[in-house]
């Protein structure tokens, strides 16, 4: 009798858990549950089983290869939603897309607001001047130059009216050089008052000092940096990399400052690039699906790999004016390639914090795109995330 009752109680419990128990029996079941520890234990076990099944992601995600085979056999292209099922969720994909757009907008805004578009019209300092040691300008020489009137060609590139610069013969090589530079589009440091260079701030004059070692490469203006990247990939890595490396996600670079705002350089690193691409096997093997439908040709396949590859790029970096003390924004664009994979483009935007002289801490957002080709089709791997590192400025 008890055994039969237990059986009926258990059936009631199962029907309740499956949403199939009518309300009249629910009251009875609740009473049984209150008094029977065995029944409660069974309920807990069944709920544990159900919860585990709900996390059976392996079962609810068809393999990408199966999806490719189905769509290939029917002559359809693989839908992005199916690809998403094998990789990132729709929410993650939307997040990456949105964040990419926001990053790009920030980069454009930064470029627009910080880039000195008018620099070549108003700047008065040729940053790098090739000269011989005999033409070095120093502050000590400045008084002698102060009385030298500004020539007309010089004034032509100035912001001040040409009439303000009285015409006079050129008496100094240094000024002559300024004139020549002006004719080439460079602009001397002098304010364009009739007082000439005397009106120039000493600090600004010091910047236009030209030394012999400007003629040869020196560490001056060179920055070495190391940074790490933490990027989420689309497609997401379906398979682990076949090997690991301590150098993974570490980027090393060297930059050379062309000016206060512009630098160029080289950067290299090692990263895993998850790849998902489709193609047709060349073996002529036909899948069961193709046998069923009579589809000719090789088997459509979807290939997933996650190679760890070295990459190298040329780098352009724009450094904005300080937003806060010791904090400068930057925008970095890179073009290059990943060894044996394809072309690589990277873009990052962020902040440089210089707590002490010569040392900078870099934090930013970064996106990258790897383009590669397989069987006449182009595929891409996008990454988005953050970067952080240290730079030493010589």
């Amino acid at each position: 009798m008890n055994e039969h009752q237990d059986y009926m109680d258990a059936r009631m419990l199962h029907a309740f858990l499956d949403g199939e128990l009518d309300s009249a029996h629910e009251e009875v079941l609740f009473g049984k549950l209150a008094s029977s520890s065995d029944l409660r234990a069974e309920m807990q076990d069944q709920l544990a089983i159900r919860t585990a099944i709900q996390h059976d992601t392996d079962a609810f995600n068809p393999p990408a290869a199966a999806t490719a085979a189905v769509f290939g056999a029917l002559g359809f292209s693989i839908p992005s939603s199916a690809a998403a099922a094998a990789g990132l969720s729709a929410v993650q994909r939307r997040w990456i897309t949105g964040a990419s757009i926001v990053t790009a907008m920030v980069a454009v805004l930064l470029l627009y607001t910080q880039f000195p578009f008018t620099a070549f019209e108003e700047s008065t300092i040729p940053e790098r001047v090739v000269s011989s040691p005999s033409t070095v300008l120093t502050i000590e020489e400045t008084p002698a130059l102060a009385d030298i009137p500004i020539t007309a060609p010089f004034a032509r590139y100035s912001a001040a009216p040409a009439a303000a610069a009285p015409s006079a013969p050129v008496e100094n090589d240094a000024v002559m050089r300024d004139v020549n530079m002006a004719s080439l589009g460079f602009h001397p440091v002098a304010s364009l008052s009739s007082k000439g260079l005397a009106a120039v701030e000493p600090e600004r004059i010091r910047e236009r000092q030209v030394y012999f070692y400007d003629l040869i490469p020196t560490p001056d203006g060179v920055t070495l940096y190391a940074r790490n990247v933490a990027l989420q990939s689309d497609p997401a890595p379906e398979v682990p990399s076949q090997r690991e490396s301590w150098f993974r996600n570490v980027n090393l670079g060297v930059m050379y400052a062309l000016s206060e705002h512009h630098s160029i350089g080289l950067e290299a690193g090692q990263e895993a690039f998850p790849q998902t691409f489709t193609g047709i096997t060349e073996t002529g093997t036909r899948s069961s699906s193709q046998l069923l439908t009579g589809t000719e040709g090789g088997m459509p396949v979807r290939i997933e790999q996650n190679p760890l590859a070295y990459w190298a790029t040329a780098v352009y970096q724009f450094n904005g004016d300080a937003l806060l003390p010791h904090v400068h924004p930057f925008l970095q664009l890179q073009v290059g390639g990943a060894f044996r994979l394809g072309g690589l483009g990277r873009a990052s935007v962020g902040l440089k914090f210089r707590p002490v002289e010569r040392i900078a801490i870099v934090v930013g957002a970064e996106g990258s795109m790897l383009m590669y080709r397989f069987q006449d089709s182009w595929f891409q791997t996008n990454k988005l995330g953050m970067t952080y590192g240290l730079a030493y400025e010589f």
Partner: protein
Amino acid sequence: MSGNATHPMPDDELFYRLDGEKEVAEAAFSELYARYGGRVYAYCLRFLGNRDEAQDVYQETFIRFYECAKQEREMTNVPGFLLKIARNLCLNTRRNKKRTVEYEDYLTSVQPSSQEKTELLNLITTALDMIPSEYREVFVLREYQGLSYAEIAEVVDSSLSNVKVRIFRAKQKIRSILAPYIQEISE
């Protein structure tokens, strides 16, 4: 008004579009695949317990589904129709399969994949392999597909009372297999 996110196109409308021009058919097929691909695969995988077989059946299910759409004009239950195709193919596969389970096959079926992270889930998939297929099938339809007893009866072409009993026994058997482990895990 064009289709919108708040009112997705009904299954039957998508089904009828499969007989349209290629672009229309492709879009409709992609949508139905996105809606039910996971459920069909879960059924195949957990019913058959073998990944290779499940993939073959899964692919054939959708191909036959598409071919049927060219002929069938009445459709009221797309997921049920898909599951019926998958079920027939699964039963054929099991019928044709050599009943002797070789050691290698056993390993294939019980080895947890990298995605089967929880210990209990691994045990459940193993337990599913240990119960009779008529129990396993209704269990999968109930727990993986979320079908009601009546829907399951329709898919397996059996009586409601028979389905109720089979589901109950399936759950009891799986619990009896897992009970020691569940207790151990919970401790």
